[in-house]
């Protein structure tokens, strides 16, 4: 495999509904933005595309990727669709990486969208729940928030995690998004706001859950030779990993925790793993990506993380899967302030806990505040990570607040089902 670089990205505003644009025009906007950021890159340099969208139901259009391809003027170049539930965008990004890493392409366009406003929220929830087992899960619950609520209830039971710790995640991501004009639902929240908002599935309130969205995002990936030729500030993709688990969370028998380089077996002597409190697929994806990128201690070797926070609870669970803290410590990790930006006032006090260095998680606002147009989400993370490492947040967001002072290495994480497909990709500056 040869080195692969990201040289440009583009996103549309994520919004509850963008009825004045269809999915083709949304992708076109994000694509044109990315192209304009690399003046030396000509459209004819693009060798092919990978298209990311989760559900044909949302567009009532099969082969929508083919319609994007012709709308962007990329015919008759190669293209294909990638689909993997909530992880569709992350899988698409890695598929674009593969095209370049393998030598098949010099320039690969990863593009994604979702137009979820085309049905009512309850119908959208039904479509999403069709990505659970339709024999045994969908007919009983038919609702992903319910599945995640059960998971976090067990997490609380096993580890003492509290609803207030979950609410802190919502406060963090919504406040971060106040400085991100692309975000759907920025807001200055309090823990009380989160807990007093309408209950969706106990203990998850509506502010513990991400929103359905319309939106698109693209990432342009190139070979080293092209990156040098184009004269931009490329960001190298140094690690990719993907993991899976049983579609049904109820079906996960217990085994040993796959250890990350900085962990010991004794850390988890009494833990029944993965249980419904943890995501084995996420840990597997992280372990593979860390090995490829040479990361020995993710909490110290990473400068920021953009992870798949579909729920406040799953952000806490994912800290543990990624090894930012040990299993069971996710709540304390939030209380310590470690995943918060140091230059923002969240209206929260943090516990004096020296166990973890500051490691901002979801500086963009994450899914909770940006929204979750599924096929665009994993690529949106790639775009924010790219801008962050390029040091161009101020130029792209019109606000320097979310720019970290000297980030060298970032992680993006995309997650499907109840941890059924998970991707982790590592991006590094220059």
């Amino acid at each position: 495999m040869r080195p692969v670089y990201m040289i440009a990205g583009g996103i549309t505003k994520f919004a509850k509904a963008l009825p004045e644009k269809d999915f083709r025009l949304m992708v076109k906007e994000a694509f044109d933005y990315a192209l304009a950021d690399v003046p030396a890159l000509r459209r004819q340099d693009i060798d092919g595309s990978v298209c990311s969208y989760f559900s044909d139901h949302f567009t009532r259009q099969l082969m929508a990727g083919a319609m994007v391809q012709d709308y962007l003027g990329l015919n008759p170049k190669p293209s294909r669709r990638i689909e993997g539930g909530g992880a569709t965008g992350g899988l698409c990004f890695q598929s674009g990486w593969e095209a370049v890493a393998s030598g098949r392409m010099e320039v690969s366009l990863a593009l994604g969208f979702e137009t979820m406003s085309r049905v009512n929220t309850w119908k959208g929830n039904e479509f999403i729940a069709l990505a659970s087992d339709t024999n045994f899960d969908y007919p009983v619950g038919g609702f992903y928030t319910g599945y995640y609520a059960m998971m976090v209830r067990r997490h609380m039971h096993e580890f003492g995690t509290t609803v207030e710790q979950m609410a802190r995640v919502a406060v963090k991501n919504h406040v971060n998004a106040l400085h991100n004009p692309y975000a759907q639902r920025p807001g200055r929240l309090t823990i009380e706001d989160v807990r007093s908002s309408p209950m969706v599935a106990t203990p998850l309130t509506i502010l513990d859950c991400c929103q359905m969205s319309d939106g698109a995002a693209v990432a342009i990936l190139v070979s080293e030779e092209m990156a040098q030729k184009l004269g931009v500030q490329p960001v190298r993709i140094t690690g990719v990993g993907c993991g899976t688990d049983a579609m049904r969370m109820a079906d996960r028998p217990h085994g040993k925790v796959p250890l990350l380089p900085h962990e010991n077996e004794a850390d988890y002597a009494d833990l029944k793993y993965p249980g419904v409190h943890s995501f084995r697929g996420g840990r597997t994806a992280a372990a593979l990506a860390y090995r490829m990128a040479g990361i020995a201690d993710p909490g110290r070797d990473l400068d920021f993380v953009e992870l798949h926070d579909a729920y406040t609870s799953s952000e806490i669970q994912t800290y543990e899967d990624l090894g930012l803290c040990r299993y069971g410590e996710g709540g304390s990790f939030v209380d310590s302030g470690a995943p918060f930006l140091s230059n923002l006032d969240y209206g929260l006090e943090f516990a004096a806990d020296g166990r973890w260095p500051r490691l901002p998680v979801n500086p963009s606002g994450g899914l909770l505040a940006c929204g979750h147009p599924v096929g665009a989400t994993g690529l949106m993370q790639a775009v924010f990570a790219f801008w962050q490492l390029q040091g161009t947040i101020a130029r792209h967001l019109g606000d320097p607040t979310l720019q970290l002072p000297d980030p060298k290495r970032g992680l993006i994480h995309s997650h499907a089902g109840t941890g059924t497909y998970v991707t982790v990709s590592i991006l590094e500056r220059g």
Partner: protein
Amino acid sequence: MDKNIKLPETEEGTVLFKTDPIIIKHHYEVDYLHSYAQDSPFFAGLANRKLLGSRCGACAITYATPRGHCMECGGATEWVELPQSGRVHTYTTCHFGGEAFLKETPFTLVLVEFDGVDTLFLSRLLGAEGDEVSIGMPVRARFLRNSKFKATDVYFVPA
């Protein structure tokens, strides 16, 4: 040839939600001929008030769900009858849901754990509200008298 032929005019019109952009309502429905295939004995079991799981002879894993083949080793499994009493492993009460289930809200979901079984069973819990449910609470299975051949033919109640 008939040069005066016309499409018949109908009374049904487009449901127009707004203009600029034009948004119209489009109804769509489909009947699937869904086969439970190798999982069929599980649903037949529910009709006979039996809860069937799967056991792998090679791995000795017992699944609380129908799996024709073992998730660990790929070997064929055998049907085993599960206990009809267990404990709440985790739970939630859904106040919102997918469209098909909105009229049933609020409803409580549980993952049930059984002695001697390695995985869990997703079901509805009736007869206990909110604070009355807890992890570890004993529950027992009940079955619909007239089977609908769906996973909801079985549900759990406090034991």
